[in-house]
């Protein structure tokens, strides 16, 4: 039961970040919002794994998500620096 409360709290936090991602006036607001969502996502996936009692599988998913998210954010920042310099 307490795990479900944790799930709901993290989901509410994600909705707050999502408001910034969808609304956010500049690109950097959206970038920061997406970064916040991805940090919550790593925890949320592990909590879902604990609910299903298959943590080892979901730890793999969250690790893969964290690594690829780093690559994605690096690509976005690289692209933005290129565009602003030109």
């Amino acid at each position, binding site marked *: 039961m307490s795990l479900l409360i944790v799930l709901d709290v993290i989901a509410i936090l994600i909705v707050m970040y999502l408001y910034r991602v969808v609304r956010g006036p500049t690109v950097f607001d959206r970038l920061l919002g*997406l970064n916040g969502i991805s940090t919550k996502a790593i925890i949320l996936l592990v909590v879902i794994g604990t609910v299903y009692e298959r943590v080892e599988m979901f730890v*793999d*998913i969250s690790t893969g998500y964290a690594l*690829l998210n780093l690559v994605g954010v690096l690509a976005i920042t690289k692209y933005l620096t290129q565009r602003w310099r030109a």
Partner: protein
Amino acid sequence: MTYSFELPLLALLILTAGGAIIVKELISAVLILGAYSFFLALVWAWLGAADVAFVEAVVGAGLATVFFLLTLSQTSPEDTRIRRPPPPIIAVIALPLLGLLLLYAANDLPAFGDPGAPASVHVSPHYIENSLADTRTPNVVTSVLMDYRVLDTLIETVVVFTSGIACWLLLRRDTE
């Protein structure tokens, strides 16, 4: 327990998909699509399809973002859309009716995780019991993919290979 978390996830999916379509700056659309594929991965994880969730998190959130940015760096960063004509009346009427028909048909499907469903009564036990004797492969998924359905997998590979060749032919630069 399944329903308490599923519906808000689906609502967030629709919200992010709509936001990605509406927003004018294409880089922002790419970022919102990242959030979209994260929610899709959560839906898969919540339904217990951990491998699909893994692929969605890796490909959707990571690789697709990089590919979109590679495309954006070669083209314009702004959405210059052509004003489309409104859809024909018959499509506006027929497509919701088709959706209703599909929803009506989905009522007859067995419930999610039902142990009495035909797939879990007839199909799965056969593969679990016979696949080791049939194919001498300890992994059941591998034996289904690479032995029972090997023709399907072969033609899938042909499709991927053909589309790769077509992309290479279309995108190559002339040396002259």
